[in-house]
């Protein structure tokens, strides 16, 4: 059952081959059996999952079910879930039982998807390896000595190991695409404003965007359709109507213009990864697409700009974690200042503290113009590069990550080298564009992801372009060994 696509699972449920309760129990059993080696879940919620599955079965029987009814899912532990611990993988929120649901949670609940649990992640979504979690690192199912990527590493590892058919993620600087790439699954980060951020614990508000991990693009299309849409609770949510993403999947790629930026194939790109990406581009040519060389000259400025803007926003976003109304409060504070300082020092891990401090510094008197304002101007240059490129091409392709999954501990002591691994993903968040990571030919046995970047609100085309590749290849069907096939 766990190797079926969402469409196949939906068909099986309709046909009565299995019930949602059976399906849900099957995945709960797999989590129980295999997650010890991966650590992909922070919280497993069997009672909720089975109760929701029973409801789903009733809907299926009554003929009121939707396309996703009864198919279990998991949520990155950044989505607030009413009555369930929502920790953001931080000691700060280890005791936080959310009193409300994120809009995404409401939507997936309304779609009838039982929730298996909450997945592990980098603390407050800050990281590219999932090593900054208070609950310990997540392991890559392809090689448990290696990282699954971050920050949505738990969701990616769980989907890759077939512990769950799909999971939600969030992407602030690559946190869906990079772990999807490193674990060999499909992950889409929609246009900024496409999925509501309400109830998604903020890291960097102008960059954060929720999205989906699944086996393939067709599954992503189904779930994204259910998650996306205008939300009156989010001022940055787009009022644009959501397209029927599944409807466009089968379009031919004949005449598709693919922009390939030279800047994405320069120094630092692993040769094996480069070869895999190039062979994928060849496959696209076979499918009728045309490769166009393009320039994104400000690509190199994405890292510095991002590492000002994201920390600056996070330094304010995380100020509410003060130990007054919820979350961790230190023992026996001597006074107010002591309560703030110790609660926050004890509650946050070192990467979070580093980013808060960088952001605080970048916004402080005398430095604002040199850092924050400058970064915002650079941000516009980066966006303008893309706007110009899309005048001439339909999609842009390149690698997601310069390397395959690296070893646990390899970069965790050196923040700067960790930051550099985000080089190909950050610009997309700064511009607010949609992008998807699609598994291509592995390099030395480890998954490699092709990044496809689309124009604003062009998710339909992204999914179509990814789906056509997946119709012609079976990299996305490969799964890691050791998880019961």
């Amino acid at each position, binding site marked *: 059952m766990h190797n079926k696509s969402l469409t196949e699972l939906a068909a099986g449920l309709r046909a009565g081959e299995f019930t949602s309760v059976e399906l849900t129990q099957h995945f709960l059993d797999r989590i129980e059996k295999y997650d010890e080696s991966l650590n992909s879940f922070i919280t497993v919620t069997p009672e909720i999952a089975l109760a929701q599955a029973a409801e789903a079965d009733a809907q299926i029987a009554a003929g009121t079910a939707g396309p996703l009814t009864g198919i279990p899912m998991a949520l990155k532990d*950044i*989505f*607030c879930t009413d009555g369930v611990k*929502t920790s*953001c993988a931080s000691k700060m*929120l280890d005791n*936080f039982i*959310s*009193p*409300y649901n*994120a809009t995404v949670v409401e939507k997936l609940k309304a779609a009838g998807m039982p929730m298996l649990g909450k997945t592990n992640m980098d603390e407050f979504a800050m990281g590219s390896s999932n090593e900054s979690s208070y609950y310990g690192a997540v392991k890559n199912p392809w090689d448990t000595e290696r990282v699954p990527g971050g920050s949505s590493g738990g969701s990616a590892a769980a989907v890759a190991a077939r512990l769950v058919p799909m999971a939600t993620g969030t992407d602030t600087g690559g946190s869906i695409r990079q772990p999807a790439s490193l674990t060999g699954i499909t992950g889409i980060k929609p246009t900024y404003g496409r999925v509501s*951020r*309400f*109830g*998604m*614990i*903020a890291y*960097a*508000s*102008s960059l954060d965007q929720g999205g989906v991990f699944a086996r393939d693009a067709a599954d992503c299309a189904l779930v994204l359709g259910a998650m996306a849409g205008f939300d*009156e*609770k*989010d*001022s*940055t949510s787009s009022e644009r109507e959501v397209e029927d993403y599944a409807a466009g999947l089968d379009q031919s790629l004949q005449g598709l213009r693919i922009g390939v930026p030279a800047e994405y194939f320069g120094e630092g790109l692993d040769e094996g990864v480069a070869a895999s990406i190039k062979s994928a581009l060849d496959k696209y040519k076979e499918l009728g697409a045309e490769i166009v060389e393009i320039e994104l000259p400000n690509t190199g400025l994405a890292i510095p700009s991002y590492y000002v803007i994201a920390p*600056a*926003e996070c*330094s*304010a976003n*995380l*100020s*509410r*974690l*003060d130990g*007054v*109304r*919820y979350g961790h409060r230190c023992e026996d504070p001597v006074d*107010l200042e002591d309560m*703030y300082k110790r609660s926050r020092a004890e509650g946050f891990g070192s990467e979070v503290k580093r980013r808060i401090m960088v952001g*605080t510094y970048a*916004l*402080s*008197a005398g430095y*604002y113009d040199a850092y*924050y304002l400058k970064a915002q101007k650079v941000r516009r240059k980066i966006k303008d590069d893309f706007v110009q490129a899309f005048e001439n091409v339909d999609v842009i392709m390149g690698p997601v990550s310069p390397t395959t999954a690296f070893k646990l501990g390899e970069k965790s002591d050196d923040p700067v080298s960790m930051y550099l691994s985000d080089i190909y993903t950050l610009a997309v968040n700064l511009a607010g564009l949609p992008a998807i990571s699609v598994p291509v030919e592995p390099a030395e046995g480890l998954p490699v992801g092709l990044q496809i970047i689309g124009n604003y609100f062009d998710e339909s085309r992204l999914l179509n372009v990814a789906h056509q590749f997946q119709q012609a290849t079976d990299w996305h069907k490969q799964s890691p060994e050791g998880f019961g096939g």
Partner: protein
Amino acid sequence: MEWETVIGLEIHAQLSTKSKLFSGSSTAYGAEPNTQANVVDLAMPGVLPVLNIDAVRKAVMFGMAIEADVPDVSVFARKNYFYPDLPQGYQISQFDKPIVGLGHLDIELENGETKRIGVTRAHLEQDAGKSLHKDFAGQTGVDLNRSGTPLLEIVSEPDMSNAKEAVAYMKKIHSLVQFLGICDGNMQEGSFRCDANVSVRPKGQAEFGTRAELKNINSFKFVERAINIEVERQIDVIEAGGEVVQETRLFDPDKDETRSMRSKEEANDYRYFPDPDLLPVAITQELRDSVRAELPELPEQKKQRFINQFELSAFDAGVLTSNRALSDYFEAVAEATGEAKLSANWVNGELASHLNKAELDVTESKVSAEQLTGLIKRIADNTISGKIAKDVFEAIWNGEGDADEIIEAKGLKQITDSGAIESIIDEIIAANPGQYEQYRSGKDKLFGFFVGQVMKASKGKANPAEVNRLLKAKLDA
């Protein structure tokens, strides 16, 4: 040395919206603690702000009323600091792009001249919660009901040169926001609060002295007192060879002093930046037009109209338009009675003094506009005299009923029947033959004595004009 004072005010007016600036929680005053704070107001992880249109409209209306520049785009920014009554750890405020730009307001000085005071800007921001310091085993209790209530912060230019001008300006803004219906002006409940920036400099010096910020002075009386005390303090400091420190000071009305708030004085670095959860606010032509259509008559316009329409003196019209509720009260009475001048005298006289004594607002008056109308009608149609009317007013105030009921019950109806008055006159003349003789022999001043006696004998009910006429005739016959 002669000193010159420079004062600027920052006024915080709570906008009278039903819901908060960025959430759907109620802003009603006086609820049980923390019952009007939702996930957004409590700054739960993941929540987001959505802007209240009514707060925007009210701010724009204020801008129009002070003839200010209202730019096409304004931006919300985060002001970062930690405080238990500030759940987000930042206040959503406005920094370099406020909703209202430069405007102005005229105040009347004691010598009758007017002075133009510049309003630098007005911006929208969230109010904070309240810290309660009563005893919770040495801890502070935090109530977040007020957290997120919309405030309009109105910042003046440093255009005021003494405490009286500052009070006149503050009163003018207070009256204006109530006229506009954008703030209830209730100072006890904290809907209208004021900080004053005060500095002194040697007379004639161009550059400003170092200023102190006096925080949260919440009555007109205290503003005047606090500023005067602070000015004296600063002059004393300088004359003793010291230097004024730029700091925040708190006025203590009990001790009649201002004192430094050192605990808050550590270097503040608010790290303002545009709030990424909110987009730029566009003030469209459509919005401007619809706000302008709702812009009520402003105090100055109303004053001119009262002068023209009701033939009131500038002074009376000024007093009556100092407060929207008062002007509404007056206008209702004046229109219903058709006696504008008389109505003005009663509203500014008897009513004002009763309200003052009882420390009541006109909206809480124990004599309603309808009741005063009833009373004034009886004065106008000579049913009662002005003197008796004061007693009737008192009785209405004390809840004894309407004017007609009281006049009837107490038998206060004026005697206008000349026969009845004549017979009283005859009795009085007969009872005072000595005075009568003196009057007849030329002591005109005794006329007043006879009037008094007649009025007394009629228990004040005789129509004074009629008494005068008839008495004159009898005495001089």
